[in-house]
Structure formats: C-alpha cells, structure tokens
C-alpha cells in the first residue's frame, strides 16, 4: 500500500484543473479528467432540455382536453423528451462522466488507452446534440423516440432525418467510449490488480461497454436505413413493396433493450461503491455481484421480443422472449439482495450519497419487479402501450439511473473539484427527489392498469385525478433536481477544501490528492489487498 499522500493545499499544487488555462486547453484536451468535465457540462445542459420538455408534458396533462398545447405539439414534446433523455443523458451520463474520470484512476493508469479517440467521442456527442437541437428548433420531430415505421418513414412530416442523423452520430460516441474502456480495463491495470480485486464499479462499466460495443452498431444501421427510406421513398421497411415494419422493430429493440441495461448497469456499479464505503464493509458476495453484471450484459441481448408481444410477432417467439425476460430479472434480484446483506453488521453513516444509494435500492426493486408484469404474456397484452409501461421504465431510469448518477456525482465531487458540498442541503435534496419521484410515477401504475394509453395529448375525464397527482409530484421532482445544481456550483468556489479521502473510502482513486494531478499517479501503485478491504486490523490507512 503506497504511503498516505501528504496533504499539500490544492491551491498551490499543480493539478489537472490549474495545469493550464484557456479555451484551447479545454477544447483540445486529451486528459480523461477534463473530458469527463466537458461531458458533465454538455450532459447537464441536455438534461435540462429534456427536463423542460417533461415539465411541459406534465403541465399539459393536468386537463383532459390538454391545458397547454395542440396535440401535434404535444407529440413533439414527448418525442424530444424521449430522444434527448435516452440518447443524450441516460446512456452517456455515468459512463461518460464518472466512467471517464474514474476508470483510469481506479485501474491505476495514467489515462485511457486512446485519449484522442476519447476526445473524438465528446465531439461526436456534441455534433449529435447539435443535429438534435437543430431538429428541435426547426420544427421538432413527432415520431416518438422509437421512430416506428411506416409512420416515421412515410407518414411523418417533421424533422425525422435530422434527429435520425443526431442519434446515428451520438451512437458512435457511445461505441468509442465503450471501446476505450474495454481496452483500458483489459490492458492497463496496475500491477497486482487482478480482475477480482477490481472495484465493482469497474465490473459494471466493463459489462456496460460490452453492451455498447455489441448493441449500438445495430441501432446505427437501423436508423441509417430509416433515414435512407425516408429520402428515397423506398426501402426495406416499406409495406407497399412487401417490406415488413415489424423487422424495424426487431432491429430497433435488438439495441434498445440492451440500451436500458447500458443505463442501469453503471448505476449499479456506483451503488456497490456507495454501499461499501458508507457501511465500511466489503460488498457481500463480491464475486456474485460481479458475475451478475456480466450475466445481465449477455442476457440483455436475448429478451427484446417482450416489447413486441402484441405487434403480430409469432406467439412462439413471444414464448421464448417471455421466459428469457423472466431469467434476466434474476441477476438484478441477486444484486439487490447482496447490497442489502452488505449493510448487515456494518457501520452505516447517512451522508447524501448513501441516501441516494438507499433510495436507489428501494425504487429499483419496485421498477425491476414491475418488469415481471410485462414479461408475463397474459398481463402484458393489457398493460403494453399504457402508462404502466411509462411508470415501469421511469422507476428504473429516473428512480434508478438518475439517483445513482446523483449519488456518484456527490460521492466523487470532492475528488473531482477538491471541494466539499454542504451535506445538509444535499440530504434535503435527496429526500425531496425521493418523495417527488414517488408522487409523480406511482399514480401512473394505476393509470396504466385502468388502460390509459401512452402518448395521449387528450384523455377521457375519468383519468384526470391521477394525472393531476402525477403532475403535482412532477413539480416537486423538478425542484428537487434544481437544488443540487445550485449548491454544487456554489461549492466549487466556496465549498470547504476536501482532503484526498474525505469519506475514508478504499480504492486507488482515493490514493491520489484531490483534485488529482494530470498524470494521476507519480508512479503506478502496486496493489496488494483485495477490493473494499475496510476491515484491515492495522490502521495504517487514514481516516
């Protein structure tokens, strides 16, 4: 174990933030830590674009006849909410921000394997975002984030091609990030850092990168064919010449279901780190949690048919997809049980990241189990296409991925900026988000079972009460998301200076000073102990 790092004050020490200044030093950087911050900025911007679309949707749905916009505009709102949140926030958020910053640090390397390609990924993200913003400003797109043909290829009269190009390009940003992580984790681990001494965050990022590598290209070709079909008015999904729209759904969901695991797996990695650190215990069943990440990565490619039980897919294919969809739920259940068991006989403290982690476990359990309703054929016939689906995936994505992302940001904020944030406000924000979230999305489960279809601008009056409840919850959730933005930015300048290891956590990233120097480590550390070795009797380790 390398000796504790002296605590030289951050201001006088050269680190990656003050190593050099100026726009060029940021726009042409190949330092994985700076690229992570570039992603943090652009992702937060896109989050608030998607979030404002969500607020308009919830405001509109207060009245059965629609309180705000015309149905055609409502269609554009939920499409932009879907496209921006899925492709420009949820998929890149944890891998691109926390992953980029932490993978080299946790693995004990100076930088990712291909730093220039890492910068290229960010530029691809920005170009993709510009295409999508152009599509929004020049009339919006109204096909839903799923772009189902033949509506999107022949009947839609909106900016489908611009959005398709935006999604096509941002897909390659995701592919290249995944590629970078796989090569770094395989080839650049510090001496002594065997696979089973890696932090579980690295296991989760590795499994996510495998999905990104194997899934995203199929989305790229599908969206490319859609754009071609729209330009040439002929193509392989066009029913007029014998093409089959269901083939588009097969190819689209072949990527898009593993994509939902791209969104949740890194979150699971963050939660393993948080639970271990704040209960000062090694994660219970470390190997099982690592294997379940890999199992999820593989099984996630075998289940996409459960999105198409009622679209005329053959009944027998539906049967196969149903049994596999039940099987993919098992690794997630194992993880939840292992996290809960980690708390047993631990020494638990309740800083803000831990509140986000505990909130994650509760909401992810709800989200995961409601997935079983949709995997079972008989019930899915009634529930598919209704608000039950909207509630299910928001429980996983907002209750799971966003809570884990916020937990991760709060946990590593001292390491990223060298400053501590006000913990009181942070805990308050975590509770507000938890309460606001449940108020927003639990009523939608009931709405779903009552049969209210998705993507409805106007709805029958009997659904109004639940919709108003959901909109009320959404306002609380919206405020909850604004609070961290304020105090985190405030903390960059005025927050107390953080030492190298404010939480007393284990892991190579906590061996470096905060914020870490540009080359991460003076000389590459040699790892001798297992991951999360909190129970070491000798208290050589600090704090």
């Amino acid at each position: 174990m390398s000796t504790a790092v002296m605590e030289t004050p951050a201001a006088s020490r050269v680190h990656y933030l003050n190593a050099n200044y100026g726009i060029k030093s940021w726009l042409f950087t190949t330092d994985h830590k700076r690229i992570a911050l570039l992603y943090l900025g652009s992702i937060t911007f896109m989050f608030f674009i998607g979030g404002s679309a969500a607020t308009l949707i919830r405001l509109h749905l207060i009245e059965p006849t629609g309180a705000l916009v015309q149905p055609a505009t409502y269609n554009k709102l939920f499409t932009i909410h879907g496209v921006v949140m899925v492709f420009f926030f949820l998929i890149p958020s944890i891998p691109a921000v926390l992953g980029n910053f932490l993978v080299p640090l946790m693995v004990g390397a100076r930088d990712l394997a291909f730093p220039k390609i890492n910068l290229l990924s960010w530029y691809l993200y920005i170009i993709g975002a510009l295409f999508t913003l152009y599509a929004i400003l020049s009339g919006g797109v109204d096909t839903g984030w799923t772009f189902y043909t033949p509506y999107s290829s022949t009947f839609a009269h909106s900016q489908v091609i611009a959005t398709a190009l935006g999604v096509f390009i941002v897909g390659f940003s995701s592919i290249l990030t995944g590629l970078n992580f796989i090569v770094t984790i395989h080839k650049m681990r510090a001496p002594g850092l065997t696979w089973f001494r890696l932090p579980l965050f690295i296991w989760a990022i590795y499994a996510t990168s495998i999905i990104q590598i194997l899934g995203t290209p199929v989305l790229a070709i599908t969206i490319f064919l859609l754009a071609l079909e729209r330009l040439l008015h002929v193509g392989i999904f066009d029913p007029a010449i014998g093409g089959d729209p269901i083939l588009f759904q097969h190819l689209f969901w072949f990527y898009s279901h593993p994509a939902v695991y791209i969104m949740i797996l890194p979150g699971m990695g963050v939660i393993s780190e948080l639970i271990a650190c704040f209960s000062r215990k090694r994660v219970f069943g470390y190997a099982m949690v690592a294997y379940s990440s890999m199992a999820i990565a593989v099984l996630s490619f075998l289940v996409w048919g459960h999105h198409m039980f009622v679209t005329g897919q053959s009944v027998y294919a539906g049967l196969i997809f149903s049994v596999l969809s039940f099987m993919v739920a098992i690794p997630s259940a194992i993880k939840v049980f292992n996290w809960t068991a980690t708390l047993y006989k631990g020494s638990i403290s309740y800083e803000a990241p831990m509140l986000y982690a505990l909130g994650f476990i509760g909401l992810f359990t709800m989200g995961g189990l409601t997935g079983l309703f949709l995997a079972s054929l008989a019930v899915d016939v009634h529930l598919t296409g209704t608000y039950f689906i909207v509630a299910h995936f928001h429980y996983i994505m907002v209750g799971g991925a966003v809570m884990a992302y916020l937990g991760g940001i709060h946990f590593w904020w001292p390491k990223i900026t060298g400053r501590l944030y006000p913990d009181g406000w942070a805990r308050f924000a975590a509770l507000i988000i938890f309460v606001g979230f449940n108020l927003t999305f639990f009523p939608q489960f009931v709405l779903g079972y009552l049969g209210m279809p998705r993507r409805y601008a106007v709805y029958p009056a009997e659904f109004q009460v639940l919709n108003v409840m959901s909109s009320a919850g959404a306002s609380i959730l919206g405020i909850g998301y604004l609070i961290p933005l304020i105090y985190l930015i405030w903390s960059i300048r005025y927050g107390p200076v953080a030492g190298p290891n404010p939480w007393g956590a284990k892991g190579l990233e906590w061996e470096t000073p905060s914020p870490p120097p540009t080359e991460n480590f003076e000389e590459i550390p040699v790892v001798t102990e297992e991951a999360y070795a909190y129970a070491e009797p000798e208290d050589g380790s600090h704090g």
Partner: protein
Amino acid sequence: MAELSASSTHAAVHPPGFRHQFEDMEQQHEAGNLGMWVFLVTEILFFGGLFASYAIYRSLYLPGFEAGSRLLDVKLGATNTAVLIGSSLTMALAVHAAQTGKRKALIFFLLLTMVLGAVFLGIKFDEYATKWHHGLVPGLKWAPDEEMHNNAPLGSVELFFCFYFFMTALHATHMIIGFGIMTVMTVKSWRGEFSPEYYAPIEVSGLYWHFVDIVWIFLFPLLYLIGGRY
C-alpha cells in the same frame, strides 16, 4: 531490439511513436490490436443488421430475389472478388515488410493495395452505371423492362435491389475510408516513421482492410450467386 528497461522515473528512452499513458511498447501494441479488433466487432454487427434483414427477406421472397440476382453480372463480381483478395495479399505483404523493416517494399505494397482498391471501386461504379442505365435503382430510377416483369413479383425484386445498393454502397464507403487510411500510412512510411519496433499503425490498418475484404467475401455469393444461374 534494445529498449532501456523503464527506470524508476518516467523518463525512460522509448522508440518513436510511444504514447505516455502506456508503460511500454508491448502494452501499447497489444492495446492497439485489441482496440482495432473490438472496433471490427462493431463493424461485424453494423453490417450484421443488413445481412440479417437480407437473409430474412431472401427466405420470404425467394423468387423475386433470384430474379434480381440473375440481373447482376457474375463475371464482374468474380473479378472484383479476385481483385480484393489480391489487395488483401499486398496488404499482408506490406505488414510483413513493416515487421522486417524493409521501407521500400512497405511503400510499394501499400501503393499496390491502393491501386487494387481503386480497380475494385472502378468496377463497382461501372456496375452501378449499368444498373442506372437499365433503370434498376429503386427510389431514384426504377423502371425495370418487360422481360423481368412477368416472371417475378416486382415488389420483391425492388427489395432485392434496395439491399444490393445499401450493402454494396456501404461496403464501397468502407473501401474509400480504407483508401484514406492507406494514403496516410503511405505518407508516414515515406517519412520513415515505422520500424520493426513500431509498426502497429500498419498492422492495425491491415486488420481494417482485411475486414473490408471479408465483408465482400460474404457479399459476393449472397448477392451474385443465389440467382440459380442454371
């Protein structure tokens, strides 16, 4: 191959082209190889989406696809395959030349690969021209003449040509990108940047070129040879 063992400080002497984030050339070389192979897996799935759809539609509309395939010129297809296999050989010899440090042979084989690539693209665009002339380009100019009309359903022949153009155009685009990579490699070799210690860029671009050749190896039989030419 003399390489000073990495002294404790980081100022060890490394061959040119060494990237600081790696510990030694061995690690950089392996990382480069693994990176390209992972990229090629994404390409396998990128083309895979098209191949899967082609396979499905071919099984659903066999008569239309066979009629469409009969309209393709097998001789041009076969010569193109031979040309591309030739370029694969010259690429492999280029990598061999780089490994053994023969700079002139490296430049010669790289140029030969690019020439063969150009021949392939030439033949390809000639084929496109004949298709355009016969009005067999779905969407842009679709006016197939009579003899083809009555014995096969029009819709599935149009589907076949959608696939023909999507797949071969995507392949040709990859050829053009490969062409760009080869030019950069030739310029670098001309400047003598490569040595038996540092030839990874040549090997990696070789992997890419061989992959593009493999895609054509599958495209040729699937598009040209299923026409039941008996």
